[in-house]
């Protein structure tokens, strides 16, 4: 299984930071997911070997963390927060709006593979609510109109 040079350099350094190799597992899984798009059987097998743990142990860890996925997502994963600070400022309406605009529901992906949608728990943007994360990018103080422009920009970025 081939990862990027950047991944390999980071991995080689990171495992020296801990007394046990396994300790690098959580951040490494996320970096692998960023490269491959999801945690495939191949990624799981590879990382289990590298970390001296069983595949089952890796799957056990994956199933615990909400950012990790074993299924492919859209190129842009739209994560709408509806936790309490966001809900009182229109977080739910924003989620409904995204669902309508993209024509998909919770954890679904558009037919062109461009967007997927997810309702998420607090992302730490409470004072700038309602907020959305698209992959790792924060978008804050949102309205449905602002959201439309943001989604259009991502679409444009992908087709350029």
């Amino acid at each position, binding site marked *: 299984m081939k990862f990027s040079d950047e991944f390999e350099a980071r991995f080689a350094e990171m495992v020296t930071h801990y007394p046990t190799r396994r300790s690098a597992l959580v951040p490494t899984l996320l970096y692998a997911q960023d490269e491959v798009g999801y945690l495939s059987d191949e990624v799981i097998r590879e990382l289990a070997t590298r970390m001296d*743990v069983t595949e089952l142990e890796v799957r056990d860890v994956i199933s615990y*963390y909400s950012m*990790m996925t074993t299924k492919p997502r859209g190129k842009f994963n739209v994560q709408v927060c509806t936790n309490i600070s966001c809900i009182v400022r229109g977080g739910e309406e924003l989620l409904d709006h995204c669902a309508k605009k993209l024509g998909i529901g919770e954890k679904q992906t558009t037919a062109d593979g461009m967007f997927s949608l997810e309702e998420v728990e607090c992302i730490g943007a409470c004072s700038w609510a309602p907020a959305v994360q698209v992959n*790792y990018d924060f978008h804050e*103080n949102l309205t449905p109109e602002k959201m439309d422009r943001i989604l259009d920009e991502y679409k444009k970025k992908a087709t350029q």
Partner: protein
Amino acid sequence: MADLVSHPDEVKVVSRRFGLGATNLDRHLELDGYKAVQKALAMEPDSIINEVKNSGLRGRGGAGFSTGMKWSFVPKQSAKPKYVLCNGDESEPGTCKDRLIFEQDPHSVIEGVMIAGLAVGARSGYIYIRGEYRYLSIIMQKAIRDAYAKGFLGKNIFGSGRDFDIYWHGGAGAYEVGEESALMESLEGKRGIPRVRPPFPAVAGLWGGPTVINNAETLASVPHIILGGAEWFAKLGPPKNGGTRLFCLSGNIAKPGVYEFPMGYNLKKMIYDVGGGIPNGRKLKAVVPGGASCPCLTADEIDVGMDFDSVAKAGSMLGSGGVIVVDDAQCIVKFALRTMKFFQHESCGWCIPCREGTDWLKKTLVRFHAGAGQMKDIDNMQYLAENMLGRTFCPLGDAAAMPTIAFVKKFRKEFEDHLDGKPCPYEKAGVAEPAFAH
């Protein structure tokens, strides 16, 4: 980059370098950066601990335990290496303050970890940042690299003959990992399931070594205490509540944002003078004073000083500094439901009272909000929540139960208004929109 706000009543200690470009190490040094750790290098470990004890600094993650006291629990001699672990897994709903510290002044956290290390005799530290904060991990990784390049970290720091290493570590989405023993499990590459205590982390923590775990804001306060002195810091707040605090104003408020006030700052003032009050001609209904796990205060209960002891006396908790303001257009049943949906989602499932309790409460609240609740459900919710208290290995069970008890007790009428197949009065009035897919 998050928007910064300011107010004349603010006392800037932790946020002193915000907006001044302090992520740049040279700029940080111009602003008195890394002076405190050099001072600490010349101090005896016990005098560092005493200084922090006397400053009245208490844990900013939510528990409010004396930081100096926590450090003093670490044994002087240990066969296994000792560690400092910075908790930057900020995920208590309503809280977004550590985010600003990492974004605006990452070196203050590094310096705080180093001073904690000198105090307890550790030679390495970890800065754990939640996975969603990827851009902050990038900032922190660079800050650590820059500190190494200057010789502030690594071998022979500041020519002192002592070594100290700091490493970044990232999470991947889990509220419970903010609990200290679950945090260590996560750092060791496992599911974030809490550990049974004793032994406490100060005795047996990361990889079995004595470990000091502090919140990022707590650690970022430490260099200022070492430089400014315990007495100065202690006097900023009321007795036993030293210093300042970053308060995250959010919800139905005109000027939300993260503000730094002395401990004990009045909540009513914070909402009306600082936050500009409730917008859209609405009235205040409730405030959650310290993040989602804290019991709410009603509009009549907000004339309270925002320090650990005063908020506790008012029947709630200062928690993590997340002040969530709720106006009278909001349905408390729906708010309670969303709160419980969160805790149900985040419960790791290890302790039965938490796993079953949060699920049962969520189901009851869903049914209630849909108009299918019964009178006996109201008392049952309270009974259920009360029976979760103190019966779990980590505080998540309590965190779910406490706000529920307060919602039911303080807003019983709103629950009754949903009875007998009545639709939610707030949605009926067209104030709130129907829920997505709950």
